[in-house]
Structure formats: structure tokens, C-alpha cells
């Protein structure tokens, strides 16, 4: 019990550190920190519309964060999530543009196509790693650029609107391909439900199945896991595809529920933010929604700083990233400390 309480208290330390650091930054630029925090909070939660925006902003972050919990558990730095989002969006867009069916089948197919597109792109990163010995960080970054290039080519060539191609994307999707919003709010209930289902499934996959245990073993010690009989090649490919599938779902949701079209910046850095979310969650899917909520709230609330206090809205980004850095700092320090204690005990013994 005491151990659990200590764990929670330790979890708060980095948040305090990050608030302190941001406070110093605010004081240096001559703004009142409390005023700034109040503005961010108000900007995120003052009205149902704002709250809906926060929830909508959570969705891709949660999906990518949960996906990366899977690959991180297997010890893989899957930074190719941006590209996997884009491929998901491309596959979903193809369905939206080509299958002029009623809403239910079109949306179902868009979601499935998005998952498929992302999973394939994830599998490519996995194949490069397993058979080409390309480190997943380099493979993932390369594939991100490739996906971005593909999206722009599609928008400027085959999918160009009749009145000429621009960076604002394709023509809007036909009506049935729009994921319906809840009343006038900019949030799609279907997206929220799919996301929560994904979190629950990922949690049980990692916690309660042989597959999750195998990924964990690989992440902790790849060679031993192999000796103990884990078929690591196929498990790696499955982990990459799972993460890619979730990211692809995020891509499909972003183009169907948020923009109603395909745009060049469809990934919008969600993949990299999702990486931070997964790191903060310590690769445990059950913590991802809470952390994503924090990230999304800061993101939605920060523009307020610009309106009310003439501060740049990128201060929200400073707050977010300083939390991540503080968490890693405190975790690193605790690990070091634990090792020192262990060594001292061993020497005494």
C-alpha cells in the first residue's frame, strides 16, 4: 500500500517540475504564470464546444499512443507512425472517392481500409528491420517521408480538384463518407467508441495473452526470448502491423471526421506526439487516455494565450514537452538511484 502511494507521489514530481520550469519561462517573458495556466484551462474546458474539441483531439493521440505501447513493449522504436497515419488516410480516401454507397457500408469500409493501409505500412518497417537489418528508427523516418510524398503526389495528380490542386487538399468527400458529429459539436461518437475499444483490446492483449507476454520478453531481452522459443520474426511483424493498424485508423478518422477530405498535412505531427504519450504512459495502454487528454487540453487551450495575453501559443508546446523531459529525468534518476542502492546492498552482503 505504502509502495503504491509512493509510486503516485513520484508520478507527481515531474509534473511539478515541469510546471515550475514553465513558470520560470513565463516570468522571464513578463507574464503571470497563474494567469497563463488559467487561460489554458479555460480555453480547453470553458464550454461544451471546447470540451468536444479536446475529446476529438484526444482520439488520434490515444490511437497512436496505444499502438506505440505495443511496439515499445516489444522493444521497438516505431517512429514511422506519421507515415502509417498517412497511409491509413490514403486508403480511406480511396474508399470515400470510389465507392459511392450508403453511409454504413462506406464508413465501415473506410475504417477497415484505414486499418489495412496503416498495418501494411507498419509491416514494411518491420520487414525492413527483420530482413533488411534496417534499424526501425531509420526505416520509420524514411517511410514517413515516402508516405508524405505519396500523399502530396496523389493530391496534386490523380485526386486533384476540378478547379486546380492546392495545399488545402482534395475535394470534400461525398456526404456518406463523413463520420457523423454529435449534434453541433465537432466530435464523432463513432471515433470515440472505436478508440476506447482499441484501448481495451490493447490492454488485454498486452496483459492477458501469450502474445503480449512474448512481446514483453522480446522487449526485455531479445536473445533470451528467442532461446525460450518465442518466434521473434513473426511477433515483430505483428507488433509493427498492430501499431500501424491503429495509426491507420487514426488517419481514417482524421480525414473522415475532422477534415472531410484528404489534406497533405493529414498526420499533423500526431505520430510524434503519440510517441511522447506512450513514453509518459510507460508503455501501459491503460494510462494513455489520461495523458492524451492532458496533451489535447493543452493543445486546444493554448491559442487562448495568444488572444488574451499576447503570448505565443507555442508555450503550450513548451509545457507539454517539459513534462515529458521531466518525467524521463526523474525516471532516469530513480533508476540510477535504485542501482546504487542495489550495489551498496550487494557490497555490504
Amino acid at each position: 500500500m505504502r509502495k503504491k502511494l509512493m509510486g503516485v507521489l513520484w508520478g507527481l514530481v515531474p509534473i511539478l517540475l515541469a510546471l515550475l520550469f514553465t513558470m520560470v519561462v513565463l516570468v522571464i517573458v513578463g507574464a503571470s504564470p497563474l494567469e497563463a495556466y488559467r487561460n489554458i484551462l479555460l480555453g480547453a474546458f470553458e464550454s461544451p464546444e471546447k470540451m468536444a474539441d479536446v475529446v476529438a483531439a484526444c482520439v488520434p493521440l490515444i490511437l497512436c499512443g496505444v499502438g506505440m505501447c505495443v511496439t515499445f513493449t516489444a522493444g521497438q522504436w516505431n517512429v514511422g507512425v506519421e507515415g502509417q497515419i498517412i497511409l491509413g488516410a490514403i486508403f480511406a480516401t480511396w474508399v470515400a472517392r470510389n465507392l459511392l454507397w450508403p453511409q454504413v457500408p462506406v464508413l465501415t469500409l473506410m475504417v477497415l481500409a484505414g486499418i489495412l493501409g496503416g498495418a501494411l505500412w507498419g509491416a514494411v518497417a518491420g520487414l525492413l528491420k527483420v530482413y533488411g537489418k534496417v534499424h526501425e528508427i531509420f526505416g520509420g523516418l524514411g517511410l514517413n517521408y515516402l508516405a508524405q510524398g505519396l500523399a502530396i503526389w496523389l493530391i496534386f495528380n490523380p485526386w486533384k480538384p476540378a478547379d486546380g490542386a492546392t495545399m488545402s487538399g482534395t475535394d470534400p468527400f461525398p456526404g456518406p463518407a463523413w463520420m457523423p458529429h454529435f449534434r453541433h459539436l465537432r466530435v464523432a461518437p463513432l471515433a470515440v467508441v472505436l478508440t476506447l475499444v482499441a484501448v481495451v483490446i490493447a490492454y488485454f492483449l498486452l496483459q492477458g495473452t501469450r502474445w503480449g507476454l512474448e512481446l514483453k520478453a522480446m522487449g526485455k531481452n531479445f536473445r533470451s526470448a528467442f532461446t525460450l522459443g518465442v518466434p521473434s520474426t513473426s511477433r515483430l511483424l505483428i507488433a509493427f502491423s498492430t501499431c500501424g493498424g491503429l495509426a491507420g485508423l487514426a488517419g481514417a478518422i482524421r480525414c473522415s471526421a475532422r477534415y472531410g477530405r484528404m489534406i497533405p498535412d493529414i498526420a499533423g505531427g500526431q505520430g510524434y506526439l503519440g510517441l511522447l504519450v506512450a513514453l509518459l504512459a510507460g508503455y501501459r495502454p491503460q494510462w494513455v487516455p489520461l495523458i492524451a487528454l492532458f496533451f489535447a487540453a493543452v493543445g486546444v487551450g493554448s491559442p487562448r494565450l495568444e488572444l488574451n495575453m499576447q503570448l505565443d501559443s507555442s508555450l503550450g508546446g513548451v509545457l507539454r514537452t517539459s513534462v515529458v523531459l521531466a518525467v524521463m529525468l526523474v525516471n532516469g534518476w530513480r533508476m540510477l538511484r535504485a542501482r546504487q542502492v542495489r550495489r551498496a546492498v550487494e557490497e555490504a552482503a
Partner: protein
Amino acid sequence: MKVELVDIHKYFGPVRANDGISMTIESGTIHGLLGENGAGKSTLMKCFSGYQSPDRGVVRVDGRPVSFDSPAEAIAHGIGMLHQDPLDFPQMQILDNFLLAFEDRILPDRRKGRKVLRELGARFQFDLDPDAEVTSLTIGERQQLEILRLLALGAQVIILDEPTTGISAPQKEKLFATLHRLAEQEGRSVVFVSHKLEEVEELCHHVTVLRHGRVTGEAEMPCPVSRLVEMMFGRNLPPAERVSVQPGQTVLRLEGVTVPSYRLQVQDVNFEIRAGEVVGLAGLEGSGQRLFLRACAGLEWVSAGHIHVDGQELTGASYQRFLDAGVAYTPANRMEEGLVGALTLSEHFALVDRHGSFFLDWNGVRERALKGIAHFNIIGRPDDPAAALSGGNQQRLMLALLPSHLRLLLMEHPTRGLDVESARWIWQQLLARREDGTAILFISADLDELLERSDRIVVFCGGQMESVHACDTTVEQLGYLIAGKGQTGG
């Protein structure tokens, strides 16, 4: 320059790698350091050359005690080491590698470096092109480069750790000529670390022999080989009585198998082991026995030949298929390739149940773990991480994780680092499996263990295999074979 190592102690946890070693190296001599694997040679030389600090003991240079915390400080005192794997930068030019010697300037003086490299190379008839890349060199040539670098740094004492592994015969001749020249004409000292008797016989003026972290003898060369063998392996009691099991049908058959690796290859192996048979693999580390054993589990790529398990051809099959055929493998580095330190004992039991249900029943797993823990006398709880276990208990856990029915059990050093009692207990468990028709193939560096436990012993030397019967072989004969001296000396 006369160098003395006085009462060097170095412990790694409970392992006494060096337990009070003293030796004196006179200038102008080639001093051999002989001993089997794990005798403490490398540890001693690392303490000598600044890679590690000894826990106790001093190094004296010309009577003055010196201490160094890094190889750079050691070389400043004139002591340089040539490692088994040359410490160079393969992607860089030879000249750049060589220039790493001159740390006195920010911008290296390439012209001067080139001149020194040429002169030194000419002195020893080394044909090294300064502009070539290190990747184009053989291991022998990389050693030459490393020797020149150490000389340019002013090394008076040069330590060579097993330098003849993986180099060709002419290169070996050239190396030996170089070492003779360094010692006899230039008055430097050479420390030659080896486990190969014939090389020590051929090259050295003086020999120190280590065993279990202590000096077991010193000798001026020439010296009878029998004395060196005795100092290296010790004399032991006659092997204990063994119970033989009537071997059954062939479990594993290798036909003309070749296993290549960077340094050596095990070539054209024909081998059979029958149900209930125990075969020990002897040899100094890196003689090919590990390659052979891992190939039998499908863990090494086989470039030629056929592997059959129970009559089923498994050449080139995945490790998983070997497992399915009833083969199991336990590595020597338990925490690096055998167990996952961060996983609990329960999680290990769940993991090895490869064909169990997809959804894990943690209660059932826990029960199995408790059973395994009780049956194998593991001191640990189901929720303890494997890393928290002691070495002996880790070994017991690896045994507990093996399937109850096996056709072929492949083990590396089944009792390394264990006390006598644990070792005996583990062998009881292993031998009990013979009744069930399991064939056991194990690597060991412990000659007594090999002779006592095996029906047959296969000795590896430089990738070559030689088979002997355990019951009519003595420790001395085995020692000769391992050190590559055949049975002629016995």
C-alpha cells in the same frame, strides 16, 4: 624494462578471477602466460594494461610501483596490449588508425605519421599501404598495424592475447619473427597469452601457468610438455563409477555438415548420437564446439550437409521446428541468452508453454511455477524476477523450464559457476532423463565433469573433431588433446 605484477587480486562478485597472482617479466624476453579458459589470464592482462584496476596488488615498473586507470595511462608507462579482436576502426584508413597514436596535437600531422608508419613497417617487413582502408586487411595485417601503433606510442612491454587465432600460417610465422626481433634485438618484453602448448614451446623463453586464478607453476623453456599439461589441468582423482544406459536408436544424425563463421569453420562433420547417450564436447573456447552445438539446435547457418532429428530432415529449418521435434538448448550465458531478467519466474513458465492457450490463465501458470520451484529446489518465488536469482538457481530455473519429454538436450556448461553439491544435483536430474530416451550433448571446460558424465567425448581443436571413449581416457590424455598435442605426448 623489468615489470613485476605483485599479488594481484580481482574478484567479480563471488568469482575469484585473480587470486593473488605474482609474475615477473624481464626485459628482452618473451614470457608465455598459459592456462585453460577461465584460468584468469585475460583478467590479469586487463589489470596489467589499464582496462581494469585490480582489487588488490601492485604493478612495478623497474622497481617503482605504478598505477593506471586507463589503457592510455598504461601506454604512457610503456605497457601496451594487443587484443584478440584488434581494436581498430575498420571504416577508416590505415593512416588514420595509426594517427590515433599521436594525441599531442589537435590536427594530426599526417606527413610525419605517414613517414613513421613507413619506417616502422619497413623495419618489420610489414606491407601496409597507409591509404588503404582497414576493412581490406586480414586479421593478421590488422594485428601488424596494431603492433606498429603500440610501438609508435613507445610501448616497451607488448601483451598479445591469443594472437594466433584466425591468422594464416605465413602470418603466424611473420608474427613470431617480429616478436623474436622485438625481444631479442630491441630489448622489449613480450607477454604471449595462449592456451596452445606448441606455440608457447616454439616461442617463449619463460612460462607462467595459471589455473583457477592462481599461479600453478613457472618454468624456463624448454620444458617437458607433460609438466606444462599437469600445471594447466592439474592432477585429479580417477573418474567415479558410471552407470551405463543401453543406447537406443539414433536421435541426431549429421552428415557432412559444415558450419562457417568469421574466424573458423567446423567442416564436413559426420556425427550420431543415440537415445540415452551422453556425449561431452571438450575443447578450449572458440575451438568450434559451440558452433557445432548450436548448429544441432538450428541456431547456426549450415552451409553444407544434412541434419536429421529422429530420421526427419531438419537442415536449414527454423529453431522453432527443432523445438517441436523435441530438441532443447540451454546456453552458458544464462542472463544474456537464456533467461529474461526482468520477467518473473511465473512469466517464464507461461512463456515456454509454447502451445498453450492464447489467453493466459495466470492462476494455472502460478501453480505450474510453484510446482517447478518445489521440484527443482529453486530458492525464489513465482513473482520474483529471474534476475534476482543466484547463478545456481538460475541454472535450476533453466532446467525447470525444459519440457518434460525431450529427444535431444543440448547444453553449454551445465554446471559452470556452481558449487559441487548443486552440480551433482543437476547431473542427477539430467541423467534421469536418459531413462526416458533423451540424448544429451553438452559442452564443458571441466575435464573431470567430461570424463565422469559422458559416454563419449568429442574433442574440438581449431574446428577439427576427434572422438574418444570416456571410460579409457585420463585427464592427462584429454588435456593433451584439447591443447592440440594429440596422444603422442602421453
